[in-house]
């Protein structure tokens, strides 16, 4: 009998030690370091909640304050490495190994930890891939999560930002892991229960609320004519002909421009109701005008966005909300929707090679992926049709030998050929290949594989890679929209001319787009203040976005 109880026994042992310090479920925050030292054992797999939005920052800081003699050799499993305290865990020797998804803010420090052999990177994942491993080989022994509020029984309310909490709690609680939550407040009655209290072992009220980044707020005032031109090309050259209804937009100004053109340019093209009706998307403030003008019918959110709370609360037909009126987000489920149920994913990147592979990893900086690889790939397990998915599949079937009809997710990369400081986006070899060698990884950190990409959009035009007959044509199609970058200048003028004639490359003029129309006058909102006006005062932007 006992030989089947090692995990349960391990949890009993940990809780017994913990009870010497904290006899009840609600723990004073001054006791957090002692609690963690009592609960965590050498070599444990420990999950710290924190993605590109909310962070269990108090618990992360407490773990970093632990004595490296008492807590060591931890294997960290975390969606993001984004706090200085995360880096400190490795500098102090508390943790040795990490499996993660995203490290934008601390990307340069992470690269230096790797160079100094202070960290061993298991793998860089896409979000739902890491969640999957919680249930396979990377189940946490101890998880440190965060929530808006708890009651005395340890029930948790996660408010608008449930994000990763639900999936971490599930994996930990049902495999005899120890679940510790930091909360902003402890209340008598919660607005609703997001995590049942009997899954939760300890609750700490943190001295200050958990930190959260308004990552998805894009100020329309920062949009230029090039982004507007490219947004017009996407709407007229991709969304309209395929009839794209179910979609995700990456983070960035290019896609913010598309959102702000729907009520103006999209409406003028008569596309309301036939494109962009259902979204898997964080609640981008730049989507407000499209929602208010009736373009958008539903939005399912992986997380929330600071300042959007009251707007979301007032639009329950659009957003998924609880009986209490606040939004329920869930990054794991959103990414399931994003993998299987989208017609199209569009996002930007830092580098694209001539085969269409893309990466945001650059030398000296390990950025990671977030969710993009999961969204930016064809879902080969998909078995339901939609007009856009079927049309893309038919295009692909023209030159790929297929005996049965099949669909295809549209995966679009939208980039300017040069970035602001004159760095070419198109390259012969991705920095990711060098980074793979530097990190001792088996595969390069590629964000979207070339064979998953269907369209590349630049200011030069749209390359439809589905219509390329062979590899050489694909390379010419990529070079053909790479403009005056070194990779673009190596195009064959004859081959590119032929691709234009066949409609594989479509330029603005081929779509009947006037360059003079690419003006900021076309944006439904030209400032954050106008977004607030569209929202009828319900959107309350964070202070750093208020310029009036």
């Amino acid at each position, binding site marked *: 009998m006992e030989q089947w109880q090692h995990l349960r026994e391990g949890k009993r042992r940990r809780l017994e030690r913990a009870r010497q310090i904290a006899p009840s479920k609600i723990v004073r925050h001054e006791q957090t370091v002692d609690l963690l030292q009592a609960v965590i054992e050498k070599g444990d797999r420990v999950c710290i909640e924190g993605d590109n939005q909310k962070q269990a920052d108090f618990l992360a800081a407490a773990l970093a304050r632990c004595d490296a003699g008492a807590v060591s050799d931890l294997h960290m499993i975390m969606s993001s490495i984004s706090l200085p305290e995360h880096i400190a865990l490795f500098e102090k020797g508390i943790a040795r190994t990490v499996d993660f998804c995203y490290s934008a803010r601390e990307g340069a420090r992470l690269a230096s930890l790797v160079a100094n052999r202070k960290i061993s990177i298991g793998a860089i994942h896409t979000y739902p891939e890491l969640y999957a491993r919680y249930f396979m080989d990377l189940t946490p022994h101890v998880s440190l999560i965060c929530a808006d509020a708890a009651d005395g029984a340890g029930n948790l309310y996660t408010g608008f930002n449930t994000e990763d909490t639900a999936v971490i709690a599930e994996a930990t609680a049902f495999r005899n892991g120890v679940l510790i939550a930091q909360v902003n407040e402890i209340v008598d009655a919660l607005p609703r229960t997001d995590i049942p209290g009997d899954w939760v072992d300890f609750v700490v009220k943190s001295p200050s609320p958990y930190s959260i980044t308004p990552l998805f707020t894009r100020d329309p005032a920062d949009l230029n*004519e*090039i982004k507007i*031109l490219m947004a017009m090309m996407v709407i007229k050259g991709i969304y309209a002909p395929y009839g794209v209804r179910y979609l995700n937009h990456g983070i960035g100004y290019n896609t913010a421009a598309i959102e702000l053109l729907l009520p103006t340019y999209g409406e003028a093209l008569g596309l309301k109701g036939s494109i962009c009706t259902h979204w898997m998307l964080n609640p981008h403030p730049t989507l407000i005008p499209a929602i208010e003008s009736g373009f958008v019918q539903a939005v399912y959110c992986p997380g929330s966005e600071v300042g959007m709370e009251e707007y979301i609360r007032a639009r329950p037909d659009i957003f998924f909300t609880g009986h209490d009126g606040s939004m329920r987000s869930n990054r794991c489920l959103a990414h399931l929707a994003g993998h299987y149920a989208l017609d199209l994913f569009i996002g930007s990147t830092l580098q694209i090679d001539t085969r269409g592979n893309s990466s945001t990893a650059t030398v000296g900086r390990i950025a990671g992926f977030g969710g993009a690889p999961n969204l930016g790939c064809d879902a080969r397990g998909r078995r339901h049709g939609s007009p856009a998915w079927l049309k893309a599949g038919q295009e692909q079937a023209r030159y790929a030998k297929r005996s049965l009809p099949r669909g295809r997710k549209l995966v679009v990369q939208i980039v*300017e*050929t*040069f970035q*602001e400081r*004159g760095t070419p986006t198109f390259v012969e070899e991705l920095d990711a290949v060098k980074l793979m060698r530097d990190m001792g990884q088996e595969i390069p950190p590629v964000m979207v594989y070339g064979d998953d990409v269907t369209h590349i959009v*630049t*200011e*030069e035009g749209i390359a439809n890679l589905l219509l390329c007959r062979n590899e050489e044509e694909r390379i010419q199609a990529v070079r053909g929209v790479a*403009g*005056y970058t070194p990779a673009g*200048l190596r195009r064959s003028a004859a081959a590119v001319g032929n691709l234009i004639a066949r409609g594989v490359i479509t330029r*603005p*003029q081929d779509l009947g787009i*006037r*360059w*003079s129309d*690419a003006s900021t006058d076309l944006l439904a909102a030209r400032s954050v203040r106008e977004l607030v006006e569209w929202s009828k005062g319900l959107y309350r932007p964070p202070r750093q976005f208020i310029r009036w």
Partner: protein
Amino acid sequence: MEKLDFTFRCSGERVESAAVSVLVGVVSSGNLEVFIEKGGDPSCCRVEVATSHGGFERAWRTLFADFLFQYDLSGYAIWINDAGAVPAVVKLRLHQAVEELMEKGR
């Protein structure tokens, strides 16, 4: 400040305009001014570039070759005053200038 001087034989769509000249854009960081004026050799188009960012002659030459393959601006001169615009902005301003010229020609 680098100065470049090119002369191109044109093909493509003939640009007819009643206007003598057109000016688009501004000389501010990352932007440029494009001035197109009638005059000079009727068999070709002369391009003069003054740029704050030197070392991109081949990119400029290829960009104009592409543009003047698409639009026939024989008998015009193009003056560029560039403050480090990326090619995307250069192309946008050129197209805007030609669209404005052609609209004035109607």
